[in-house]
């Protein structure tokens, strides 16, 4: 049951990414192009997504457990830390260069052609390389 739910939720997420324009790198780069020909579409996407999710957090706060059991996620970690900023800057640079973030990169793989495949493989390599890099960064921080 959890698997079926996850499958269809992933699908709904993907169709949302497609319809909203998040899988279209021209729209994404247009949104990031604040000093050029700025395209505000992504603000509508973010707004449209944040409102239902904010309601969901309110509902979750009043419930003991998720519908299929288990527990709700713990409250957000208050500490910011260097990794959050460093990682977000690196991510933003990659997002600005190609116009794809992780969700749309996966959702568009069937129609993204060779470029889409190159992006996904490189992204996965980066994800595999991240934990050891993170450990060495933290090691230097505490040393």
């Amino acid at each position: 049951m959890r698997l079926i739910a996850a499958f269809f939720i992933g699908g709904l997420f993907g169709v949302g990414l497609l319809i909203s324009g998040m899988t279209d790198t021209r729209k994404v780069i247009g949104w990031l192009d604040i000093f050029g020909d700025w395209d505000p579409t992504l603000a509508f996407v973010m707004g449209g997504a944040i409102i239902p999710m904010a309601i969901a957090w309110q509902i979750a706060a009043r419930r003991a457990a998720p519908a299929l059991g288990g527990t709700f996620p713990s409250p957000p970690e208050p500490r910011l830390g260097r990794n959050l900023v460093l990682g977000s800057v690196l991510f933003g640079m990659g997002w600005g260069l190609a116009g794809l973030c992780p969700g749309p990169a996966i959702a568009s793989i069937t129609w993204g052609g060779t470029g889409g495949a190159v992006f996904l493989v490189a992204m996965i390599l980066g994800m595999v390389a991240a934990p050891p890099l993170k450990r060495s960064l933290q090691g230097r921080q505490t040393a």
Partner: protein
Amino acid sequence: MLQDWIFGLIGGAMIGIAAAAYLLINGRIMGASGIIGTLVDRSAPENGAERLAFLTGLVLIPGAVALATGTAQTHLTGNFALIAVAGLLVGLGTRIANGCTSGHGVCGISRLSLRGIVATVFYIGAGGLTVVVFRHMLGWV
């Protein structure tokens, strides 16, 4: 333009409803980079099947919609070296920061998580600066 905004709003609502359902039904935060990242680096072996099911739906269902409409296009640059560097940065960055547009952006901001807000400010800021440098100054993108 107006039509783009309406599609943005509708698609955005679908993203938000998906995130809401993943929280209220499965009890999980719908963060794309965490879902794929913990699967490929094998850092969280429990619930791997659930994440794999999510990713399978994420590939197949929009893939079927795109096939049916025949209009989906990523308009990705033809410069594969640039794409590879970008992909590497996105993979590294989202895992170091522990989240991307869906996790920090949608799920974090909606519960007023300071980490989510700070991350979003930095990745949009860095993305904006990158477009300025690489599109307007260097003309690469």
